[in-house]
Each structure stands twice: as structure tokens, then as C-alpha cells.
């Protein structure tokens, strides 16, 4: 810790950089969590045009699976992650095939009602099965502690998150650009009728994308548990943030939701530090301004 005596300009500068870097890293890791949860929502909404307010509930469900797998069943971190992803994806496939499917052609209001109803069911279900308290994620020792980055020491876990986020966005982007299914998704987002008439099995695409998106949400719920917390209200508490990330980023745009999430993460981090009471108002104002100027979001192409 620096002493109270005068410090050289160089030391102060290094300190400020370190401060800045610390804030930046904190915001980026928060934003990454937001991204990992929201990316599935962005893709499914861009692809299916379906207002899925229950997305946060899937994140919550997956988070619970991961955390409970580690805490109660003593599974290792990687195993728990995979378990969370798979379990949530499987659940979402079941729900998609039986229920969501019936509402694809329904109006926005019905979709809103249905998914809010699902959220309530999830929340009540988790409260009944697990209990109303919040769960904590025990970080594996490898990810605990601090990492020395040269000019700053920062929490290993936060760095880990940022790296994972970059890997995911690159991975998804590559999948979209290089794989066949990615091409099919892009085509369907662009023009669904055309895609259907080209022989693309749009129904199967929906299911796969929905499953993947929910799995990613689960991942985000679990990975972000120690930062966002995990309790039965999770599904509703952060819903507005997920929706903001998706709509500001632009539906169907992975790059868009990534940028929007990082911006929100950094902004929120900064605001919590310097304007703890009600700083989030700026996020809302910014969202309103952006959506008014560009209703389709920063990277969105067609109208919502």
C-alpha cells in the first residue's frame, strides 16, 4: 500500500492505470456474464421472433443445477458445468416441443403472458424444491485467488470469465460463418420464408437453437452465480438487463449482444462505484436513447 507521503508522478500514473484497469476488468467480467446468459436469447429472438421472457428462468435453473451439483453432489467444476448445460438444454427441448411451438404464430402479448407464467412456475418450483435461500458457488481452487498480469493483480476468476467470453463469441461467430447449420441459421434470421423454400428444416433449427441458447443461459447462470447471486428471484431480477442487452445489441447479432453486454457491464460497474444510489438510471436513459435512434439495435438489421 502506498504510504501517505508524496509519491512520484510515475507512481501515481501507474496507480491510476491500475485503478482504471481494475475497473475495466471488473466491468468486462460482469459484462461477459451478461453476454453468456443473453446470447441465447438474442439468437432465438432473432431466429424465432419469439419474446421469451423466461430466458432468465432457464439461466436460473441451469445455475442451480451447476451449483447444487458441486455443493451437494460434490461433482467437479467442469462436470457440473456440462451437467448444467445438458440438463437445461434437455428441459428446453421438452418445453419447446410441447408448449412453445404452439405459440410461434401467436401475438406478442400471448408470448409475453406465457413466458411470464413459465417464470412464475420456475420460481415457485425452485422455491419448493430447493428453498428460498440463495446459493453460493464454491470456486475450484484453480480459479480462486489472484492472477498477476504484470501491471496489476486481479481476481483469477474474473480473468477466466473474460477469456471464456471471448472464446464463446469467437466460437459462435465461427460456427455461424463456417458451419452449415450456422449458415442455415443466418439465412433463416434473414428471411424465413425463403429459407423454408430452400428446404431448410426450420422447425429443427428452432429446437436446436433454443436448446443451445438455453444451455448457454445455464452456463451464464452458473458461472455468474458468485457475482449475480443465485436465488429464486434471479429469473425476474435481471430480466430487464438481459432484455436490454439483447435489444440494444440487435436481435440475432452475436457481436451485437456481446458489445452491448460489455458496455452495460462496464457502465454498471463504474456507476455502482461512483454513484451507488440510483446510478443505474443512466443505463435506462442510454437504452431509451439508443432504441429511439436505432429501434433495431446497434447491430440489428431488420425491424424488431
Amino acid at each position: 500500500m502506498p504510504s501517505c507521503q508524496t509519491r512520484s508522478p510515475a507512481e501515481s500514473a501507474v496507480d491510476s492505470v491500475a485503478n482504471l484497469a481494475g475497473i475495466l476488468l471488473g466491468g468486462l467480467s460482469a459484462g461477459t456474464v451478461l453476454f453468456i446468459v443473453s446470447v441465447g436469447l438474442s439468437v432465438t429472438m432473432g431466429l424465432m421472433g419469439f419474446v421469451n421472457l423466461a430466458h432468465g428462468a432457464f439461466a436460473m435453473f441451469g445455475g442451480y443445477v451447476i451449483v447444487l451439483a458441486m455443493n451437494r453432489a460434490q461433482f467437479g467444476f467442469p462436470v457440473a458445468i456440462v451437467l448444467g448445460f445438458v440438463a437445461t438444454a434437455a428441459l428446453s427441448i421438452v418445453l419447446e416441443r410441447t408448449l412453445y411451438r404452439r405459440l410461434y404464430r401467436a401475438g406478442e402479448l400471448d408470448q409475453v403472458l406465457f413466458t411470464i407464467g413459465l417464470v412464475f412456475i420456475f420460481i415457485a418450483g425452485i422455491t419448493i424444491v430447493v428453498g428460498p435461500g440463495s446459493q453460493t458457488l464454491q470456486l475450484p481452487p484453480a480459479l480462486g485467488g489472484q492472477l498477476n498480469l504484470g501491471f496489476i493483480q486481479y481476481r483469477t476468476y474474473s480473468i477466466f470469465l473474460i477469456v471464456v467470453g471471448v472464446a464463446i463469441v469467437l466460437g459462435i461467430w465461427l460456427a455461424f460463418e463456417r458451419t452449415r447449420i450456422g449458415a442455415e441459421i443466418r439465412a433463416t434470421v434473414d428471411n424465413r420464408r425463403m429459407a423454408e423454400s430452400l428446404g431448410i428444416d426450420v422447425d429443427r433449427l428452432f429446437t436446436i437453437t433454443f436448446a443451445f441458447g438455453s444451455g448457454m443461459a445455464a452456463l451464464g447462470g452458473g458461472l455468474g452465480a458468485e457475482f449475480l447471486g443465485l436465488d429464486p428471484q434471479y429469473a425476474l431480477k435481471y430480466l430487464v438487463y438481459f432484455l436490454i442487452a439483447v435489444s440494444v445489441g440487435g436481435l440475432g447479432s452475436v457481436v451485437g449482444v456481446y458489445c452491448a453486454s460489455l458496455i452495460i457491464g462496464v457502465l454498471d460497474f463504474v456507476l455502482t462505484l461512483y454513484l451507488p444510489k440510483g446510478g443505474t438510471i443512466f443505463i435506462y436513459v442510454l437504452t431509451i436513447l439508443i432504441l429511439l435512434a436505432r429501434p433495431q439495435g446497434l447491430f440489428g438489421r431488420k425491424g424488431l
Partner: protein
Amino acid sequence: MSVAMPSSGDASFAARIDNPAARALMRRHRVRWWEALPWAAALVFFFAFPDYLSFGNELLVVILFALSLDLALGYAGIITLGHAAFFGAGAYTVGMLAFYGVWSEPITSLAIAAAAAGAVGMLSGLVLLRTSGLTLLMLTLCTQALLEEAANMGHDWTGGFDGLLSLSFTPVFGLFEFNPLYPTTQYLLTLGVLFACFVFVRTLVYSPFGQSLTGIRENLLRMHAVGSPVRWRLVVCYAISAAIAGVAGGLWAQNNAYVNLSALDLDRAATVLIVLILGGYGRLYGAFIGAVVYMALEHFLAQIYPTAWQLGLGLLLVLIALFARNGILGLGDALWQRYRGSLPWRFRARRAAP
């Protein structure tokens, strides 16, 4: 506004007007006998259940709030999860005026609340109603969240999370005092205000303005193509809806003698939406039925098993979205259609899913 005299010869005019379609249109706004029932029931409740008047108060406020949402959602087709913004605007207007001793006459306070909330509605409508669909939904959510945060930030004036307590109001008409233990004055005031607002909304719905709102909802592009200033109509409707929501908020503040952030939160907005959908939107009386059913269920179930109430509510919503999107009144229509043939003229079928 006088009605123009018939043009061509009286005989042919009379013959044309005699057409069943014309007669139906001319009669549609007439008051039917059963429309007196809700008010009679409310008065009976007043005399029969004097110990439950605060519950009755709450119910009446929810009805008014849901009625305001019906204007926006059911008649203008604006899907909003942010209507609590206006409820809260009205509540805080009344609350702050009373708390700081600026103005505490109840009826005029409500008028001021309506003006304040209406202004917020007009302003946000002008800006937001340029968008539609998910963007609009997001913007209504953000506006509401913004107001909530602002109220939180301004905790020096608004009391922040705890709110403003122990509000006191001058007696109604100088005669009838507010008594927190026996809310008879509050109940009758709320009922009176609800009645006045309902008459206003009902008139609006059957007016040419209301007809144009129906047209906008039925086919937006066609309304543009008949020269209708669509956006302006929607903004005005939204502003009126906001004003009435503000009155509901003001009544809520008066009835509870406090106001806090819960007036502005997502929970309140979601609840009023559920109430309206449950009863049936676009039907005027859906607000009444939805509120009664919802509050009765909540009163009995939530006290006993709060988690089960949430589970049940979730299931109910899922079922409504899948099978009964027009709510209880919609189900009533369906039953009527099944057993009595076609619907009576005045009940319009909901537009089928787009």
C-alpha cells in the same frame, strides 16, 4: 356537437336506417340493465361487509388501474409492461403534495395527479409510440424502471425505499373525514371516482374516437390509408390511459396514507396486466371481472401458501396464453356461441392471432 339532418327524402332515409346493421350501430352505446350490477354489488358490499372495506378499497383501485390499462392495451393495442410508471406518478404526486403540506384536498389532488400522470403519458407517448413490438415493450419497461430509479435517487424528497408515511388529507367536501380504521369515506370516494372514470372511459370507447382506435387495432395500414392521424390518436389514448392510471395511483396513496417505490415497480405493472388479461381485454368489464377473481384468489391462497399461489398463477397464465387468450369474458363468449349459436351483435370477436 349537433347531428346533421338526414339528406334525401325522409322516407328513404328511414328505410336505410332501418337496416339491421344501421340499427345495431345506432344502439350499441345504449346502457343495458346488467351494467348496473357491478355498482349495485359495490354498494351492497359497503353495507354488508363493513370490516372488509380496506380490501374493497384495494379491489376498486385495481379495477380502475386495470381499466386504464384496457384503454392502452385493449383499445389502442399498445403492449406495455410499464403502466405502473403512471400509477406511481399519480401516487407520488398526491403523496408529496400531502406530505409537504402543499395540498391535501383529496378530490382536487386526484385531478392534479391525473394531470401529472397524463403529462408523463403524453410526453412518453410522443417519444415511444414511434416504435412498436419488442422495441416498444422495452421502452415502456425502461421508462418505468427509470422513474423508479429516479424516485430512489431522490430519496430526500420521495422517502426512497421507505416512502412517505402518515399522509393526511382534508375531509371530502369538507364533511367526510378519512379514518384509517374505518375506511368508509375512502371506500365511497374510491367508488365515486371509479364510477366517474368508468363513465368517461365508456363514453370514449363508443365515441368516434373509440371507433377509430378499434380501426387502428384491426388494421393499422388501412387506417393510414383512410387518412387517419394514427400516431396522434395513439398518443392521446395513451395519455388518457396514463391520466386514469395516475388517478388510481392517487387513490391508492390516499387509501393507504402512504406512498413508496412499490407504486412504480415491475411487479405492479405485471400484476395489472395479468388482471386485465384474466378478465378479458378490450371489453371494459374485463377489468372488473379480472380484478375480482384475481384479488379473491390472491387473498385466500397467498395468505396460506404463498409459493403455491405463485405456482398456480404461473400455470394459470400458461393456460390462458395457450387456450383462453381472451380471458374469462372470452370463455363466456365461446360458451355462448356454443350453446346459443352466433354471438349477439355487440360482442366482437377478438382478432385472431396475426
